[in-house]
C-alpha cells in the first residue's frame, strides 16, 4: 500500500529524515514512536506529500507520489490525515466542515454529502453537534470531527500525527477509542503517537525512530516486551511508568 524508498528530508542543514525505508501493507496498523525531534512526524508528512523528500521515493499502491503529476490528487485522496491541532475550518459549522471537500473535490451533491457526513458524525458519536461551530467544541470533540472529516473522503489509509498530544488527559480516551474502532474495522493506519498503551494494544507493528533513522522495527508485543536496541530500551524506560 505505502512504500518509502530511502527517503531523506532536510530542513536547511538539519537532516530530519535520514535514509528511511519502510513498507506498510493493506490493513496494517503501524505506530511510529520515538523522542521528539526524531523525525517521526516528518516521515508521516512525507507519506502524503505535505513534505517532499529531497531524496528517495514515496510509492502509494506502487505509483510514485510526485507533485504536479496527474495522478497526484488521486493518490493523496487515498490517504486521510489527522493533525495534532485538528485544523478544523473555524468559519464553518461541523457539517459544512465535513461536506466541503466532498462537494468540491468528490463532486457529490449536497444531500449525498450531508448523508455521508451524518453517517460518520454518528460513528464518532457527535451527530448532535452537526450545526455547532468548532469553537464550541472541546478538544476531544474537535479531533473526532477531524477524523470524521477525513473519513468522509473514503480514504484507504488514515495517517495520524500525534492525534492526542494537544488534548487534555481526560479527552485522550474518546479519541483513542474512535481510532481503535477504526482499527478493528480493518482500516490501514499509520499513527505517530506518544500513547504507548495504544501502540501496544492496537498496533501490529511499531517503528522506533531516533535522529531521523529507524532504530528498531518489530511486532508491537515483541517491541514492548523485549526491545532489542539499547536506545529503544532507554526510551521505553523513560516513557513507561
Amino acid at each position, binding site marked *: 500500500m505505502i512504500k518509502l524508498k530511502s527517503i531523506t528530508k532536510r530542513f536547511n542543514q538539519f537532516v530530519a529524515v535520514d535514509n528511511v525505508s519502510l513498507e506498510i501493507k493493506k490493513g496494517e496498523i503501524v505506530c511510529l514512536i520515538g523522542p521528539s525531534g526524531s523525525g517521526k512526524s516528518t516521515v508521516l508528512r512525507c507519506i*502524503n*506529500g*505535505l513534505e517532499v523528500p529531497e531524496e528517495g521515493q514515496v510509492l502509494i499502491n506502487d505509483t510514485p507520489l510526485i507533485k504536479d503529476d496527474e495522478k497526484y*490528487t488521486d493518490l*493523496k*485522496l487515498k*490517504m*486521510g*490525515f489527522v*493533525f495534532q*491541532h485538528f*485544523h*478544523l*475550518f*473555524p*468559519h*464553518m*459549522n461541523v457539517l459544512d466542515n465535513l461536506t*466541503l*471537500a466532498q462537494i*468540491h*473535490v*468528490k463532486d457529490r451533491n449536497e444531500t449525498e454529502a450531508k448523508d455521508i457526513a451524518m453517517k460518520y458524525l454518528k460513528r464518532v458519536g457527535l451527530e448532535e453537534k452537526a450545526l455547532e*461551530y468548532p*469553537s464550541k467544541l472541546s478538544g476531544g470533540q474537535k479531533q473526532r470531527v*477531524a477524523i470524521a*472529516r*477525513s473519513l468522509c*473522503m473514503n480514504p484507504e489509509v488514515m495517517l495520524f500525527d500525534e492525534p492526542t498530544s494537544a488534548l487534555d488527559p481526560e479527552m485522550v480516551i474518546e479519541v483513542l477509542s474512535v481510532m481503535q474502532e477504526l482499527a478493528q474495522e480493518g482500516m490501514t493506519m499509520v499513527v505517530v503517537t506518544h500513547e504507548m498503551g495504544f501502540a501496544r494494544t492496537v498496533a501490529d507493528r511499531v517503528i522506533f525512530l531516533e535522529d531521523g533513522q529507524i532504530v528498531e522495527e518489530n511486532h508491537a508485543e515483541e517491541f514492548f516486551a523485549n526491545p532489542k536496541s539499547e536506545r529503544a530500551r532507554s526510551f521505553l524506560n523513560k516513557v513507561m511508568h
Partner: protein
Amino acid sequence: MFVAFEKVFTLANMIYLFKGALISLMIAALALFFGLILGIIGASAKRSKFFLFRWLGNIYVEVIRGTPMLLQILLLFAVMPAMYTAITGSVIRPNVYVIGVIALSINSGAYTTELIRSGINGIDKGQWEAAETLGLSNFQTMKLVILPQAFKRIVPPLVSEFITLIKDSSLISTIGAVELLKSAQVIGNTYFDVMSPYTLAMVFYLAMTLSISFVARKLEGRLAQSD
C-alpha cells in the same frame, strides 16, 4: 470670535454644508471601493510566484505609502490632462472630482494591499495543510477556506481606512473640488468668519466618522459569532 454664528447658522448654509459632506462621503466610498479592487490585485501580485509581479506590487505600495497624499493628488491633477493631450491630441479641462477619486483610490489601494496581504498571511498554515489533505486545490482553498477567514480580520482595518479616506478627501479641495471642507471655506469667505463654518464642518465630519465606527462595531460583533 463667534459673533457671526447666528448669521452663519441658516438653513441654506446647513444644506450647503450637508451637500459638501455628501460629496466627501461619496468620494471616500468610491475610493474605498476601487481601492479594494486595487488592493486585491496588489495583494495577489505580492503573493505571486513571479518575481516581476512581486516587484511591481512592492514598488506600488512603497511609492504610495512613502509620499504625501497631497503630492499624489497634485501630481495626478497635473499629469492626467497632459497624458490625455498626449494620447488624443485634444485639450480637456479635467474633472477635479474624477481626479480626486482616482488619486484617493490609488492611495487607498496601496494600504488595502497590505491589509489583505497580512490578513491572508495571518491565517494559520494548518488551514492550508488541512485543505490540501482533503484534496482542495490552491484556488479552492483560497476561495473557500482562507479568504472567508481573512475577510473577518480585514473588515475592522478596512473601516478605519474608510474613516481615513473621509478625512483625507478634504485634500482634494486644493485642486478645486467643493467637498465639505471647501464648502465651509466658501461660507467663511462670504461672512468673513471662518470659525463658525469650520466648527460646523468638524461636527459634520464627526457625525460621519462616528456613525461609521458605530456600524463597524456592530458588524464586528456579528462577524465574531463563530469565534
